[in-house]
């Protein structure tokens, strides 16, 4: 047990009291951080959910168009049409600090002037539509990736903070309190035994004086 290793001295008591004050302050700060992280996390998750639903439904439409295009055109012609894309997008990854968590921010630089990398013979309008819709979806796909990664990183940080708060609340602070109590009791006991000893010595001296 931790108490067994405590040195019951006044110096140790002062040191432990200081640590208890620090632990309590740390606990409060971490609790506040956890609450704020939770708030930010819920906000990100809400945005992520809305974005995911919108992206999934739009992706479904793209796949439908693409499926129709692949049904109308032969596999070889379809693959040939798409084998040399000319649409280019550069993605710049920056970071943003949310409660000391560095979450990614994707910034795109797209050349949207021309998407279509194929000629018109043998290709269909459905293919144009799916290519167009897919390219329109790219910024939202990147935003979704950004939100999902942020949510993951915030979740990890919340978990870490929660453990720290719990460790302080249920382990460290009670231990400090127990140790302080133990030292106080020990010191009081020492004081009492000294008083008793002095009283005993006094009695013995009185008895000795009376005998003389």
């Amino acid at each position, binding site marked *: 047990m931790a108490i067994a290793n405590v040195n019951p001295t006044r110096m140790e008591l002062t040191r432990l009291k200081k640590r208890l004050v620090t632990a309590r302050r740390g606990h409060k700060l971490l609790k506040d951080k956890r609450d704020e992280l939770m708030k930010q996390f819920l906000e990100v998750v809400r945005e992520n959910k809305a974005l995911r639903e919108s992206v999934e439904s739009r992706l479904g439409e793209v796949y*439908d168009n693409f*499926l*129709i295009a*692949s*049904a*109308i055109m*032969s*596999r*070889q*012609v379809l*693959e*040939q*049409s798409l*084998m*040399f*894309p*000319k649409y280019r997008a550069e993605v710049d990854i920056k970071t943003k600090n949310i409660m000391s968590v560095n979450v990614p921010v994707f910034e795109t630089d797209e050349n949207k002037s*021309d998407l*279509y*990398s*194929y*000629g*018109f*013979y*043998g290709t*269909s*309008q459905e293919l*144009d539509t799916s290519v167009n819709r897919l390219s329109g979806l790219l910024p939202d796909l990147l935003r979704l990736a950004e939100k999902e990664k942020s949510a993951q990183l915030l979740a990890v940080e919340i978990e870490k903070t929660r453990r720290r708060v719990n460790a302080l609340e249920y382990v460290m602070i009670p231990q400090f309190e127990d140790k302080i109590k133990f030292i106080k009791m020990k010191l009081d006991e020492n004081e009492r035994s000294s008083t008793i000893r002095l009283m005993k010595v006094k009695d013995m001296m009185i008895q000795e004086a009376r005998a003389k």
Partner: protein
Amino acid sequence: MAKTKYKELDYTYAVARLRALENNLLEANGLEKLLSAASADEAAKHLQTIGWKGGNFEEMLQSELEGLFSLIESLGGGEFLKTQRVKYDYHNLKVLIKSELTKQNGDNLIMNLGNIGADIIKNAVINRDYRLLSEDIKSAIALAYEQYARISDAQAVDIIFDGALFHEINEYVKELPEEKIPVLIKMQIDIHNIKTFIRVRKMGKSVGFIEKVTAAGGNIPREFYIENFNAPDNQDAGVFEHTPYRKVFSQDENLELSLDNMFMEEVKATRFGAFGIAPLAAYFWMKENEIRNVRIILICKNAGISEEAIRSRLRG
């Protein structure tokens, strides 16, 4: 070049044979059977029972297409087939040149149905030895490389090849010994141009672009598309009011589908000739359309699309 000597009666056997084979074509009832199959696999099994060969969907469709070319060739439709094989030559060229420019291996996309053997085209592109290729292809390749070196645009490469493809088709059409097939091919060119006109306008391109991508040789001159390019978006019906294609713009269904259907109606009207090469061409396009419809059914069924939605996409 002088036209080959052509006698309509030379095709009596071929027409009779195709008349018999026409009964095996999957028309509305046959397609309905496929549509009502429980799954794409069931539909494929049904196709196998009526003589389609091949393990998976792609193999079945490819095998039917190859069989169709062999059949028409064996029945003396070689001159006509040249006009239909050209697209595979240019497809192979596009595959090979794009593979080279992107350093990919596109061998699995090569189709051995062209006028020129796939190996010959491959060898020509890889070794820059164009002796066995047509003049149109030679100049298109040179222009494509030059254009790519200047603007690195894959679409520009495709457009050059598409232009050469139509030029070559028009040259072959001139050689055809009869009149019905050129009419249908002109119609195909018009349909390509109309589809392109609509697509290019939707893409928001300039009038200069439509000039590059429309093909010569149709009934509607290219100038028509250029002149009407800046007409308001909702005025397509008005633009084509005085052309034979006005009726497709008054229909609610998908424009590409309506145009394809209109072409198939013309083809079906041609099939009833008793002599000459035109019934061969009609059979070819009908079978090609059947293969396309089967592809639509199998792929859409495999993806779980409803019967009604598939039915609305079928051609002819």
